[in-house]
């Protein structure tokens, strides 16, 4: 069976419209739309167009390099990959659980990461659509436009992100691609000077995070007809939760609810993910399609990320965010909220929660002192799962006795949302584009639906594709640098003797 609007029944003769590249998202993606003569939408696809092969070249590397290497999957959420890999390597070494000091330092780093990534997404990338309107002037629709029109809002966004980045810097040494976590623990304590630096601004940040929730909430209240229906569809939702059902972004057990909100999977160990899910490949995108094995590909897909987490947990263990969660749940009037744009609201609730967690952790003397490292009996295998800003992130490794990685499997957050993002753009296409002359503003509607998921398309591009291949690379002076061909048998051959031109 195939999904509605995924594949046109008769593609020949249809008109193709492409949104390329999808902008104000992280990574490399495009959308193609096929229309018939009456402008009726026949096919819509979100393609992930890049591949990088991380899973493969991590094999053969020493395990201790991995938490630092994998950060380069993504510069927006490097800490998520850093910590998911470190957690997996803790298991590989049998150094599990890590010491309380190490876990708290990692949590501090992680919640700083969630906060800065969410702030970046909302203020720098998505807010222009929400504040100016979906088909507002294309030249206004960016952070510069927001700074000019709403300097107050923009400045708070910039400062919230800065604070999150500073939390990362003091725990990992650098804002982007630092080195805080190591297999078995952490490499340094928090210094008193750094703690005091952050504490100075913490209350202010909690207040501004609360303001951010208010902005997101008001957007829904001002236009419920649009915000509730835009790109909306019913789906399962999956996330980690703490063993007692609380929201936890660093560690927990796997829980999933169906579209009516009923829990059908709970308490599953992160180490067992392969028993629960599998991934399918479709020929038109490099990003795979995961689903729960027990339900199958057609109904077993799910959403991850803020919308899932805020509704999957039983409560949020910090008072201000918990009050906001209750308001969010009440908005659904007894039903789960399935609206795509509600991701923004849920995301801002998580910013507030993260800020509350950070403030509490900063007051904890265990971050300044105490054992950093654990050792144990080596097992050679380990899975690390974390709730990254965009959703559940899975790292899975096997390590040989010679310390070299022999197997690496990654399922990144955005990949879990692959089917969901495709459903969202098809829903928007049906509601807004079908039968109409397409304009830039209408096409932006498609991107708004994608942006709501805050996709990290760089993260999702670790797979490789095979296509007819004939690529020539020439240097600035015209010298031939590389020429690769695929033979009819599918073999890749280098051919430096017979260059052909690249498409201009």
């Amino acid at each position, binding site marked *: 069976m195939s999904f509605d609007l995924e594949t046109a029944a008769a593609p020949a003769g249809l008109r193709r419209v492409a949104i390329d590249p999808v*902008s104000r998202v992280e990574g490399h993606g495009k959308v193609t739309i096929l229309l018939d003569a009456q402008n009726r939408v026949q096919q819509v696809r979100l393609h992930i167009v890049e591949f990088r092969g991380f899973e493969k070249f991590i094999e053969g590397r020493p395990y201790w390099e991995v938490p630092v*290497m994998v950060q*380069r999957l993504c510069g*927006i959420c490097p800490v998520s990959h850093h910590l998911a890999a470190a957690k997996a390597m803790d298991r590989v070494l049998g150094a599990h659980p890590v010491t309380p000091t190490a876990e708290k330092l990692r949590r501090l780093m992680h919640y700083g990461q969630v906060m800065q990534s969410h702030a970046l997404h909302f203020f720098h990338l998505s807010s222009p659509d929400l504040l100016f309107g979906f088909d507002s002037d294309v030249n206004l629709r960016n*952070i510069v436009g927001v700074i000019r029109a709403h300097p107050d809002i923009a400045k708070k966004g910039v400062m919230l992100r800065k604070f999150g980045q500073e939390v990362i810097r003091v725990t990992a040494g650098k804002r982007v691609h630092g080195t805080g976590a190591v297999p078995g623990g952490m490499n340094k304590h928090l210094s008193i000077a750094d703690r005091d630096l952050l504490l100075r601004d913490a209350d202010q940040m909690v207040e501004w995070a609360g303001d951010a929730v208010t902005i997101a909430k008001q957007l829904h209240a001002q236009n419920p007809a649009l915000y509730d229906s835009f790109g909306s569809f019913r789906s399962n939702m999956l996330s980690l939760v703490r063993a007692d059902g609380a929201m936890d972004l660093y560690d927990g057990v796997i829980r999933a609810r169906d579209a009516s909100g009923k829990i059908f999977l709970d308490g599953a160990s992160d180490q067992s993910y392969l028993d629960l899910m599998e991934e399918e490949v479709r020929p038109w995108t490099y990003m795979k399609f995961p689903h729960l094995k027990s339900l199958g590909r057609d109904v077993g897909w799910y959403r991850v990320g803020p919308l899932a987490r805020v509704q999957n947990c039983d409560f949020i263990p910090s008072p201000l965010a918990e009050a906001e969660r209750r308001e969010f749940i009440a908005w659904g009037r007894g039903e789960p909220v399935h609206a795509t744009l509600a991701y923004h609201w849920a995301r801002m609730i998580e910013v507030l929660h993260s800020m509350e967690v950070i403030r509490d952790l900063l007051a904890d003397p265990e971050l300044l002192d105490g054992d950093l490292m654990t050792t144990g009996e080596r097992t050679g295998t380990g899975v690390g799962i974390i709730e990254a800003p965009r959703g559940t992130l899975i790292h899975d490794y096997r390590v040989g006795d010679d310390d070299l990685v022999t197997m690496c*499997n990654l399922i990144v957050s955005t990949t879990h949302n692959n089917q969901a993002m495709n459903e969202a753009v098809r829903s928007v296409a049906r509601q807004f584009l079908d039968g109409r002359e397409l304009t830039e503003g209408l096409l932006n509607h498609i991107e708004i639906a994608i942006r709501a998921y805050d996709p990290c398309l760089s993260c999702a591009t670790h797979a*490789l*594709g095979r296509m007819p291949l004939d690529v020539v690379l020439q240097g600035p002076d015209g010298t031939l640098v590389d020429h690769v061909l695929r033979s009819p048998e599918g073999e890749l051959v280098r051919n430096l003797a017979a260059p052909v031109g690249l498409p201009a």
Partner: protein
Amino acid sequence: MTTLAPLYPTHQPRKLKVATVSLAGCFGCHMSFLDIDERILELIEHVEFDRSPLTDIKHVGHCDIGLIEGGLCNSENVEVLRDFRKHCKTLVAVGACAINGGLPAQRNHLDLGEILQDVYGSRTGMSAGSAIPNDPELPLPLNKVHPIHEVVHVDYFLPGCPPPADAFWRFLTDLMAGRTPHLGHGLMHYD
């Protein structure tokens, strides 16, 4: 009191047009650029953004400065890079990936065919019958990841993974003031 009109029209400096792109990069260089934090409020007084992941301009126009993050891993990267070279007076290779391929170039010692076989042929957790993507909408992968100076002329190199925010700031303020950019000690590093 009356204010005197200036004798000559005052010179209104034109804003520098800047385009940015991520090729085979992780966006970390863009993040580090945004780590100039509140200085962005000052920057936009002097700079205008053209095509960038931060705007909805999809094709690069004529620009003063093009900042390139990431190396070349597929044919589309090559096209975009050439387009930037054509449109930007000053082209800057930003970060390890653009300068020498960076981490993605770790795949260069492996055979592309073998990697394909591994990722789609024998991986755990894949549905039965999964095959390798082969749609014409997907750009062609290059056999090796290449740094950008192998394909176009590059005017400046900004090292680091990513370059620190202060390096971006120094570089751009130097250019805006008409000075030859000079990073100096501390802003020039390779991690």
